[in-house]
């Protein structure tokens, strides 16, 4: 039962990734092509809950590909992930999305 659930989550993760990818590119294309750009860049830090190498690879790759975020740095104790945001006014929503990805990865790895 547990194995079946894990396989289900492993199949679900690439679909979620593809959905995020299409959404990110449509947002970015809209932002670039409209003459008045609504961007407001800045940095933020997010507390990490996973610390293995593979888990961090799985986390930083979707964070770079989701709308408006680009993963920048991880400090030496692996406590915080530094993220560059394109829309600083929607900071709460974006941090919530990154935490959502983190829970999905924790479900796969554990």
């Amino acid at each position, binding site marked *: 039962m547990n194995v079946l659930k894990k396989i289900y989550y492993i199949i679900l993760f690439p679909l979620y990734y593809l959905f995020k990818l299409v959404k990110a590119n449509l947002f*970015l*294309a809209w932002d*670039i092509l409209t003459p008045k750009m609504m*961007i407001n860049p800045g940095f933020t830090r997010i507390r990490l809950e996973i610390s293995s190498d593979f888990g961090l690879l799985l986390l930083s790759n979707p964070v770079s590909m989701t709308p408006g975020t680009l993963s*920048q*740095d991880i400090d030496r104790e692996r406590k915080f992930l530094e993220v560059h945001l*394109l829309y600083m006014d929607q900071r709460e929503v974006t941090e919530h999305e990154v935490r959502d990805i983190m829970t999905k990865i924790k479900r796969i790895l554990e």
Partner: protein
Amino acid sequence: MTALTSILLFLGSVFILIASIGLLRFRESFSRMHATTKATSFGLLLILAGVVFYFLSFIVAIKALLVIVFVYLTAPLAAHSISKTVRNTGKNKR
């Protein structure tokens, strides 16, 4: 050469064009990296999907999958390395 193939190829080229326009219009290096990392990878994905639908053979599909995996593994790493360089040299203003 079906209509689907040509539409996929055209959309991929348009996304690469959008990435270059973003490289021209954004004001600082980090925002430019947003444009090149996301839109370029997505454009290459669409072009490779068009190539697979054009040839419709197994070996081309495997090769296209390899290219997609390489691009999607290496594009965020390259962006990460460039941004570390930008922050170390401290020349991110214009």
